[in-house]
């Protein structure tokens, strides 16, 4: 039993990512897309937190990273087919609207 959490808003703009980290279980996955990939900016407190997730897997949509000049981030890069594959691998998907 596991949840894939999907976030698309910047952690510098709202509290979704912080709250999501609160609900993240050790078997869960976290997929950052859209402006949420800004959470991976090296050296920021959020990037440090994301680097120490207990058990949970961290993914980022590759084109959103590329578009924002985030080239070597501490997350597993996935493309859209990979996004679909992930949504099937986990029991449920929780999109933080």
């Amino acid at each position: 039993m596991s949840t894939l959490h999907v976030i698309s808003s910047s952690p510098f703009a709202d509290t979704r990512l912080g709250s999501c980290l609160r609900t993240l279980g050790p078997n869960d996955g976290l997929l950052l897309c859209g402006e949420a990939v800004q959470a991976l900016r090296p050296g920021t407190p959020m990037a440090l937190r994301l680097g120490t997730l207990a058990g949970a897997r961290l993914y980022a949509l590759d084109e959103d990273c590329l578009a924002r000049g985030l080239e070597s981030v501490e997350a597993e890069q996935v493309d859209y087919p990979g996004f679909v594959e992930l949504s099937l691998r986990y029991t449920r998907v929780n999109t933080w609207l």
Partner: protein
Amino acid sequence: MAKSLLIVSRSAPWSGLAAREALDIALAGGAYDLPLGMLFMDDGVFQLVEGQRPEALKQKNLGANLQALPLFGVDALFACSASLAERGLDPAMLAVPATLTAPEALPAVFNQFDEVITL
């Protein structure tokens, strides 16, 4: 067997439509006997505060809808204890009986349901 759904409500009640929409999903699903639960977290816990008077803002009170949840068979109600504490809310003063749940226990709440929607 219908799939079970957890509705995570994390919006305050009187600014924007998200709180009302989450509640409408719960009541509509409950009317069709779907197995539903609601989790109030972040600013969503403000919906549970007693003694609110949204009439002052010419808005309808959500309180009656919240009270109706158990009547519609939606009695799996959870409230994030950390969200309450951060906002100075006393768990003993909530308008609706919700199970206080610590953040560490939230993944287990998600795991009780087939699907989840966060508003």
